């Protein structure tokens, strides 16, 4: 019985921690350290943008070829755009973004904050009279909220571009105009908004989990490594759960497709 009890209690700890960090963001505490927030935003852009877009691009290519072959099989190669539009925008991009966020940003946060914890830098912050939670976690969450919506939309763009390359330039069974006609017809701005909300929900969860595991790391350099590995376990599961819930809430049994009457 010990293992499930440990899980439940650490879930509760994470929820409490996340509640505090989110509340601090809304109280405007992060603005006391706005310089640090901007610095963290810069680190996110410079350090993570390229790999996130890179993964989005590769996943977009895969969506493109699967769609092209599937539509060829049903005898409607001109409609490959439907598959690309839905696969990229609604499902694949949020997941690709969540995977790369948890790998690059989530574990990075644990390694960074955990190292600060075990070399007693966090205690030093407290001694200096700076709230360490605000300085380390709240600023990072605010930075993520400031930067990531734009990064996410750019990732969707990278995925679209990759699908176009795969379907039109590589497989080449549909003209560029025909592809885009269907592609844009089967999506609209609310779809992009829902997709962005899904991506942002994943990003928020990942940043909070990363901050939690880093902030509570213990047991020397080895402990930081273990905490990093543990955060990745929770993050991968949560990314899939958020993805499923998002699909259920936003698209449920309503396809939002320009078909029928």
């Amino acid at each position: 019985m010990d293992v499930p009890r440990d899980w439940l209690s650490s879930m509760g700890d994470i929820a409490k921690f996340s509640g505090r960090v989110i509340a601090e963001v809304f109280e405007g505490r992060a603005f006391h350290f706005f310089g640090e927030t901007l610095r963290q935003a810069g680190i996110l852009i410079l350090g993570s943008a390229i790999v996130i877009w890179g993964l989005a691009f590769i996943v977009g290519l895969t969506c493109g070829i699967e769609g092209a072959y599937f539509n060829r099989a049903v005898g409607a190669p001109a409609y490959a755009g439907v598959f690309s539009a839905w696969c990229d925008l609604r499902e694949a991009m949020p997941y690709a973004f969540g995977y790369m966020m948890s790998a690059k940003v989530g574990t990075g946060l644990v390694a960074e904050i955990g190292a600060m914890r075990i070399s007693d830098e966090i205690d030093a912050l407290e001694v200096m009279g700076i709230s360490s939670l605000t300085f380390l976690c709240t600023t990072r969450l605010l930075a993520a909220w400031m930067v990531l919506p734009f990064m996410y939309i750019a990732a969707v763009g990278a995925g679209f571009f990759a699908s176009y390359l795969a379907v039109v330039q590589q497989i080449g069974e549909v003209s560029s105009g025909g592809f885009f006609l269907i592609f844009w017809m089967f999506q609209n701005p609310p779809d992009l908004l829902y997709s962005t909300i899904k991506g942002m929900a994943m990003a928020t969860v990942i940043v909070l989990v990363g901050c939690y595991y880093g902030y509570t790391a213990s047991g020397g350099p080895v402990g930081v490594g273990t905490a990093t590995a543990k955060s990745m376990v929770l993050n991968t599961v949560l990314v899939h759960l958020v993805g499923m819930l998002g699909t259920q809430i936003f698209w449920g049994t309503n396809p939002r497709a320009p078909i029928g009457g």
Partner: protein
Amino acid sequence: MVRAVADRAFLPTKSLLEQVGDMMILTGKTLLSAVRPPFPYGTEFVQQFLFMLRLCWLPLLISTVAFGYGAPGLQAGNFLVIFGAIDRLGGFFVLASIREFAPFVTAIILAGVGGTAITADLGARKIREELDALQVLGVDPIKNLVVPRFLALMIVTGLFNIFALIFGILGGVLATLTFDAPLGPFFSTLLSNATTTDLWGSVLKTTLFGAIIAIVSCYKGMTASGGAEGVGRAVNQGVVIEFLGIFAFNYVFTQTLLATHPEISVIK
């Protein structure tokens, strides 16, 4: 000035290429010492196999059911319901689950859960200088640590793929029930569209994913360095390289399989 700019641009590229080369060398050494006698890695292999099994089964179960229900289940189901062809969802699951998402969700979970655990474990041993101690004792770390992990991850990833398939299809079943559709047509289109080529392609793909994960995690763990942050950084870099490698390999493999076996994409 020019030199500073050039350094900033090319040094990361150079170190990346060097690391890729080192990983290739590690792969070669691992393969060689796996087939060359003696074979002292039996016990470690079984331990690692069971360790991976214990660690990954629950995250994988939750993730594949969630993915199968959400992405292919609800989205494709919605589309098919418009045409009154929800019975075709089973056929779509061959494409979605067997060919695409079961393999990569398996790989994501094995990389995120198993790979990070291996990196953290080997990194801890490196930091505590246990690896150096092993070498001083005349024990080859590649033969005794990397080979068993490499083999265990390859086999366990391939087998977990079947597990992921089954639970992915369970997600599809849940989606079918959400649309109040009968399950008989789901299974009949699933089974009539599934081919052996799909299945072996899927298992082969995940086995190779397992090889990528094992080599990258072992390499990053065994080269961890740099104080308090070292092991954490190693885990971080390892999992990023694994994800990029997995998806890049997935694209090439899917493209090759689809192009060389046109019969698997015929809808029956």
